[in-house]
């Protein structure tokens, strides 16, 4: 137990400031590698950042749960789901973009952009990802809200925790865990909607007709969501997540972070309003910042790996400052450089354009531009030529040389297409496609078709044991063509 489950009123004229006996879980004297997890009971707080967090929670959860239900008409025989990772068919659909397995580098590029974006945001605004939009934060917030709804706020939860088992306690615990499990199952359930047609799989899931892998995925994600959101919580951020360690490389003294302005607050201590005590700073040591912290830390201890900059301590402190008629901002978003400047009476400054941020911005623009250009110039026609390696060549009875190739034509368009196969700069060469006419090769929509192709060349046209050969595939509907280089081989000369 972190502290005594009691809150004593701190009388101050007609209004009161609540005082909590809260201690941070990571104080030096409490740190041990073998320490059991100390349960944290974050206190409810209201304010600007709490409101912002509710809004972001609603938006991110809506995006997660509703995205698979967006429809996008692609014509017959193709899925009408806007975002779909079709693993059996090996296609990724993203609105108007359809990505084939060999184009998976678009996904890689997207992930690189996301990572660079995270780096840039971290450099400018610190750990806002951790504090607001990380799934661990969002789901933990949701689970904590459920916990408060059933068990009450911090002090009630602490009382319940230390109370002996009773019917009421059992009922509360069961309903809390039941709701957690339902949320967890819905989280895992929504995940599989991204991998199959959402309405179909929803029906299949409830009629037990879905693939076993769908149920296994849901079970695993239900388990991890329940475990991470309900039980592990801050342990995930502190011990499992690599990001708190990595992000130190992106932060500098000009990055935004949650700071305690110790030059203003110290020495801390309780006192009565309107009876200024010259020996004390603005911090009245009410410990509200500690009580509301979901990570269970004390921001007044300075910058810590555990701090996810969720800014709830800012809300808590501002509320207290309002009550004791002191200016807000004892705890505030600020940069370390500015805290130092303010401490020495200097004027705060904002430095967004720093070599670090400009570098990240530059790389983002570069990667984005490369991806955009490649996406725009992406052809819906792709060919690949595989040369026979055994035999390398065949001598025909008239002495001419024949090479075999497999020409694969990829039609990424939504309609069946006719193609013409021809050779570039190959005078006297014979072109033969097994089972088809080279002038009209049919490839169905969204399909890859392979054709056996024989090229015959009189020995007299072959000056060396090999010569380059270029296949041209022309789309008969629009005249676009695609080329592929290969080699024509003959005997040693």
């Amino acid at each position, binding site marked *: 137990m972190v502290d005594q489950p009691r809150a004593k009123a701190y009388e101050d004229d007609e209004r009161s400031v609540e005082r909590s006996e809260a201690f941070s879980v990571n104080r030096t004297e409490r740190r041990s590698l*073998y320490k059991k997890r100390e349960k944290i009971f974050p206190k409810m707080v209201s304010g600007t950042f709490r409101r912002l967090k509710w809004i972001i929670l609603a938006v991110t959860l809506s995006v997660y749960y509703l995205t698979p239900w967006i429809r996008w008409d692609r014509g017959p025989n193709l899925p009408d789901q806007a975002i779909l990772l079709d693993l059996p068919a090996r296609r990724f659909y993203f609105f108007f973009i359809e990505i084939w397995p060999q184009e998976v580098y678009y996904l890689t590029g997207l992930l690189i952009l996301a990572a660079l974006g995270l780096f840039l945001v971290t450099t400018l605004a610190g750990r806002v990802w951790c504090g607001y939009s990380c799934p661990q934060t969002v789901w933990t917030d949701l689970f904590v809200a459920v916990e408060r709804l059933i068990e009450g706020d911090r002090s009630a939860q602490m009382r319940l925790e230390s109370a002996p088992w009773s019917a009421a306690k059992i009922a509360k615990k069961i309903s809390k865990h039941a709701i957690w499990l339902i949320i967890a199952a819905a989280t895992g359930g929504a995940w599989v909607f991204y991998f199959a047609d959402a309405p179909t799989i929803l029906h299949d899931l409830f009629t037990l007709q879905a693939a076993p892998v769908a149920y296994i995925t849901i079970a695993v994600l239900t388990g991890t969501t329940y475990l991470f959101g309900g039980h592990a919580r801050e342990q995930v951020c502190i011990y499992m997540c690599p990001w708190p360690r990595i992000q130190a490389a992106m932060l500098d003294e000009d990055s935004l972070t949650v700071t305690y302005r110790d030059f203003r607050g110290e020495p801390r201590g309780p006192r009565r309003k309107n009876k200024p005590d010259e020996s004390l700073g603005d911090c009245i040591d009410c410990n509200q910042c500690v009580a509301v912290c979901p990570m269970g830390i004390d921001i007044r201890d300075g910058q810590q790996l555990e701090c996810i900059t969720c800014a709830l301590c800012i809300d808590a402190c501002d509320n207290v400052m309002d009550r004791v008629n002191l200016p807000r901002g004892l705890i505030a978003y600020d940069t370390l450089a500015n805290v130092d400047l303010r401490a020495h009476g200097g004027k705060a400054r904002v430095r967004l354009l720093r070599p670090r941020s400009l570098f990240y911005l530059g790389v983002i623009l570069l990667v984005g531009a490369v991806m955009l250009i490649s996406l725009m110039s992406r052809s819906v026609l792709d060919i690949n030529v595989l040369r*026979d*390696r*055994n*035999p390398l060549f*065949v*001598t*025909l*009875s*008239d*002495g001419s040389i*024949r090479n*075999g190739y497999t020409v694969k034509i990829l039609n990424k368009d939504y309609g069946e297409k006719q193609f013409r196969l021809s050779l570039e700069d190959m005078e006297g060469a014979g072109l033969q496609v*097994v089972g088809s006419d080279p002038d009209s090769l049919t490839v169905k929509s969204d399909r890859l078709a392979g054709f*056996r192709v*024989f090229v015959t060349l009189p020995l007299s046209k072959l000056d060396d044991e090999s010569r380059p050969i270029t296949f041209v595939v022309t789309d008969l509907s629009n005249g676009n063509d695609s080329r592929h280089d290969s080699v024509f081989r003959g005997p040693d000369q």
Partner: protein
Amino acid sequence: MARIKETDAVTGVDTTGHEWDGIKELNTPLPRWWLWTFYACCIWAFGYWLVMPAWPLVSDFTRGYFGYSSRANLTEQIAEAQARQSGYLERIAAADVEGIQQDPELLGFAMAGGRSAFAVNCSQCHGQGAAGSAGYPNLNDDDWIWGGSLDAIHQTVVYGIRSDHEDTRVNDMPAFLRDEILTRDEISDTAEYVLSLSGERPDQAAVERGAAIFTDNCVACHQEGGVGNQDLGAPNLSDGIWLYGADKASVVASINTGRGGVMPAWNQRLDEATIKQLAVYVHSLGGGE
């Protein structure tokens, strides 16, 4: 050794009771999660012994409650695969080879089946890519000794060449030197003539002498001008393809010994459906007529 329980004052953890020069070892307990994992694994192991094949016996092994056997699974999977293929195989066995080639579904099946049957049965002589080697015909080209139509290929595969089957394809080219039909000089001249059929030869006198010998001894099978006869299995000597080599020594050796390559009759080893698939596959390699 009597165990005296001693608790370390600094950490609050018991010691093991061992002491080396005043240094004591803490008896830090194993993490609970580790212990539970360990116990779960033990329980799992006992369960595994009971339900799965686990213990070797003198001449057998414990089969386990589930009776799992990877060998039985394999047999079952092979049987399943054969059951899946049986429909196609029956249709292929019933159809004629021309019919298989016209039916895209059967053609696709026959090509795949033919490729694997070729790799298992034919590639040892004809090569993995069917390009052959000296004495083993290249099946990719358009030069066929016994005919390159689907039916001709099918017949060759079924009965073989100079095989022990009574319906085998067979012919006998005399061993002109060994049987003392021609002299070495005459054979040399004949070889010069044969090579001249598909290219220039500098020794015109030898070619002319060889032409006369060829007319007397070879035309019956190899035909006028050496164009060959597929019905008799007489190779075309006027094209650019040489089964035993394009140099004079190889041609002389062929005339000397008569060669006479052998191919088994595959109907004694393979079923009809497989042979048909092979014929379709070989025909598709690029030289089929």
